[in-house]
């Protein structure tokens, strides 16, 4: 086999592998198809500290998870169910804050750090015409 043919073969194999992995990534089973489980992970257990009602074995968490299950059964949307809890416990019951004006900085600050840091790194490069250090 010529050098060239071998190179082409290597590329074809590599691309085949990439395609397989991409297929595997897209076709793999989703993280959690269970909506009750997924919603439970987004609601804080009021009597615990830092745990979600999905994680906590406490009685209150179980009761709340039952409410979630009932509402999922009744065909309510995720947002409706979260709304039900925030209307009673306040926004503090969410582990997953909603995107709104007062929580905006939560997403904007890391994004700003990423962009600002990126620009700072970019500015460190030597300009054309400068002597190398």
């Amino acid at each position, binding site marked *: 086999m010529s050098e060239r043919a071998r190179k082409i073969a290597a590329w074809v194999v590599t691309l085949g592998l990439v395609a397989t992995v991409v297929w595997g990534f897209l076709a793999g089973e989703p993280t959690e198809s269970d909506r009750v489980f997924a919603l439970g992970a987004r609601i804080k257990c*009021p*009597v615990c500290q830092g745990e979600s009602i999905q994680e906590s074995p406490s*009685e*209150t968490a179980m*009761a*709340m998870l*039952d*409410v979630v299950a009932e509402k999922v059964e009744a065909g309510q949307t995720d947002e409706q169910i979260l709304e039900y*809890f*925030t*209307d*009673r*416990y*306040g926004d*503090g*019951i969410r582990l997953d804050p909603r995107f709104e004006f007062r929580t905006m900085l939560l997403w904007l600050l890391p994004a700003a750090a990423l962009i600002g840091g990126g620009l*700072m790194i970019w*500015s460190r490069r030597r300009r054309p015409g*400068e*002597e190398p*250090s």
Partner: protein
Amino acid sequence: MVFDESGASETRTRGDRRDDGRRSTLGKYAVATAAVVAALLLFGIMGSRFGKDLKEVRSPLIGQPAPAIELELLEASGRWSLDQHRGSVVVVNFWASWCLGCRLEHDDLLAASAAYQDRGVVFIGVVFQDEPGEAIAFLDELGRGYPNVVDPGSRTAVDYGVWAIPETYFIDRDGVVRSKISGESDYSLLMSHLDAVLALDGP
């Protein structure tokens, strides 16, 4: 600050040096400024929290129609329903025998319930995650003054958004939640909440 002393820029032209010095100075001061801003923010955030009760949560139910209560009585057969008390001011107290704060506030609740009976105020105790036997023993020990109901599965507690008992809700004559006490209450606290609710649409 225009001419920086760092050795690294020595090989560069004068123009470059000036440019470099200003730029890096800006960058370095930005770090220091960010630190000072962070310090002030931290100071404000944290300073405001000393001595505060961190467990207190403002209830979003205030100003909203009260969630329904329709529960079995603890010590009698039959049900107790909030709807039947429309027209009265209702005080809903969530409690349990295992809760120390509930033990401490019980006398004051009884006293307030007795004092405001004539003014159309109804008290109801909701037993929260407790064995009925233990709850009855608690009442045997500390006294009774108003009905109590059991809340299997904590459904009513979830409807009211109870974070940690004891919690006490005040519902006006139209069935709207007007205020809430998180944690242990006492007589004067109950009085001020009740007077405020009664004054809203007093006769």
